[in-house]
């Protein structure tokens, strides 16, 4: 059926983090309006942070998300350490990367196998897949569990780590404790490779004319390593900024249909963050084994089809397992688990790579080291405009699909970004103007 006019409303998006909806309007064969509606109530974390001590955001912001708490902890820690002029290196830096690898593994695998794969197979849940692929899904569960296990050993708990502090950790694990992860990681590596090969066999829809030159892919770029915690902010279209300048060019816009702000660069520059961006901007920093696997499954150096992001997530998972093994192999416990980070008045910012993409934090501390202002811009906020653009382009080029198929594919377009709606809904800022005499 060809849609000359259509009002497609999906009131509750499933298999995403949090609660949202989608609304697409087609009039006379032309997409008239597209809205990713995020209605989950704003959570006001930035307001909670005001008035708190400089060491508290590491714990407070971890509670924003049960899937990517490490990302919040790392961005908060780096922002405040940078303000203090403190650099964390050596084994503490390695432990942070290891912890982040654990989060990437558990988050990517949850999304790939249980949230996104059902789209490609036409089923409604990972349970159905598990009935058809019991051996693969057993190993996938073990792979995910291994990511959570890393978080438990390094971070103290499998979710919402409690062992992270400014300057490092409360306690550094022993070599023996990390060594106990090796057998699981070796088994997990085989599972991650199998998962990549499995998802690479799916049929992938496409969005016509979605070329690299039409879309700005933004990520961290570090000179020597695939980025997690550090680097400049770059894009395929020439962006190359320190995070401080990035913050000055970020603009957040409130739209009526979303409790999450939409982020742009310079007010009108649309971009996207996440695995496709990281891959495109850092492919030369991956291991040979990951690059070989990418070539085997047909992922090039600049993958732009958002539907194939599931394969890139898988490749990043393989890399994260390898990076975890590399770190554990060379690990020597630090003399102290953390370095001191004194409160310093001023403004500090940092961005790290959450599984879903760049996560920006900015903190302003007063002379007493108390937080006067906090800004958090998560990846889903930065991706909302790109998601809506994809929806518009996809619907316009697939009007021949029937209502059911089109609605299903539109949800898939959104899930391509692994949106974390709960993370995104803490930005709505409330202010009142009483100068007019009203109350």
């Amino acid at each position, binding site marked *: 059926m060809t849609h000359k006019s259509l009002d497609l409303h999906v009131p509750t998006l499933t298999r995403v983090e949090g609660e949202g909806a989608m609304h697409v309007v087609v009039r006379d064969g032309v997409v008239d309006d597209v809205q990713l509606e995020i209605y989950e109530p704003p959570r006001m974390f930035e307001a909670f942070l005001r008035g708190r001590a400089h060491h508290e955001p590491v714990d407070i912001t971890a509670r924003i998300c049960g899937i990517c708490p490490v990302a919040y902890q790392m961005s908060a820690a780096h922002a405040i350490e940078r303000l203090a002029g403190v650099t964390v290196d050596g084994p503490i830096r390695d432990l942070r990367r290891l912890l982040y690898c654990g989060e990437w593994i558990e988050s990517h695998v949850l999304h790939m196998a249980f949230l996104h794969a*059902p789209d490609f197979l036409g089923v409604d849940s990972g349970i159905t897949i598990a009935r058809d692929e*019991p051996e693969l899904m057993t190993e996938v569960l073990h792979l995910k569990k291994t990511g959570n296990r890393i978080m438990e050993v390094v971070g103290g708990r499998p979710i919402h780590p409690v062992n992270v502090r400014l300057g490092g950790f409360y306690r550094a694990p022993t070599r023996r404790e990390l060594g106990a992860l090796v057998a699981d990681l070796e088994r997990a590596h085989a599972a991650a490779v199998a998962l990549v090969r499995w998802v690479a066999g799916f049929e992938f829809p496409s969005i016509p004319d979605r070329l690299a030159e039409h879309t700005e892919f933004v990520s961290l770029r570090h000179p020597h390593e695939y980025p997690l915690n550090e680097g400049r902010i770059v894009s395929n279209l020439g962006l190359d900024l320190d995070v401080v300048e990035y913050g000055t060019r970020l603009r957040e816009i409130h739209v009526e249909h979303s409790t999450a702000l939409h982020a742009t660069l310079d007010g009108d520059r649309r971009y996207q963050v996440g695995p496709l961006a990281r891959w495109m901007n850092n492919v030369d920093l991956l291991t040979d084994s990951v690059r070989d696997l990418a070539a085997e499954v047909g992922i090039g150096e600049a993958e732009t089809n958002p539907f194939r992001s599931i394969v890139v997530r898988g490749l990043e998972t393989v890399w994260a397992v390898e990076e975890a093994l590399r770190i554990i192999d060379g690990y020597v416990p630090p003399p102290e688990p953390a370095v001191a980070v004194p409160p310093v008045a001023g403004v500090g910012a940092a961005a790290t790579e959450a599984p879903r993409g760049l996560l920006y934090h900015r903190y302003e501390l007063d002379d007493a080291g108390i937080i006067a202002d906090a800004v958090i811009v998560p990846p889903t906020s930065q991706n909302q405009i790109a998601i809506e653009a994809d929806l518009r382009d996809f619907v316009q080029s697939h009007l021949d699909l029937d209502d059911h198929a089109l609605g299903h594919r539109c949800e898939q377009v959104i899930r391509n970004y692994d949106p974390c709606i709960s993370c995104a809904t803490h930005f709505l800022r409330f202010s009142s103007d009483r100068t007019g005499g009203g109350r």
Partner: protein
Amino acid sequence: MTSIVIGVGNRDRGDDAVGPIVCDRLHAQLEADTAVQVFVCEGSILDLALHWGPDDHVVIVDAMQPGTAPGHVVTFDATIEPLPTPGAVSTHEIDVSVAIELARAIGRMPSRLLLVGVEAAQTEWGTPPSAPIDAAIDTVVDLLVADLVAPRPSGALR
């Protein structure tokens, strides 16, 4: 065969703490019994199936959604009957039923899997368990101690 008790829930969320608290009490009472493993699952629930083997006897204790009878204890033999799952859900709705049915789907069910649910009165952040749940915790602990000392091969708790 190992007996495994898994307490699911959040200690900081009112009556949702019932599973972890039952585990705390069992730890204290069954300390010397090496044939019984007791642990708390406060996250990463999806991979529950990897915590047991095919010959194990497993009991999962969790809070149930508030209804009309706070503290009411329900046992369900998931070995025999599948649990209703919420279907295509947000990650916020991944619960014990999803984890158990995932275990069944991949062929990793234990020889006996009992689900013990305690109906919650409230699950507000930062609150302690309410009075009806306190009483129910004692009931569940007594049931489990009796069951674990001389477990039945299948079926519900005595």
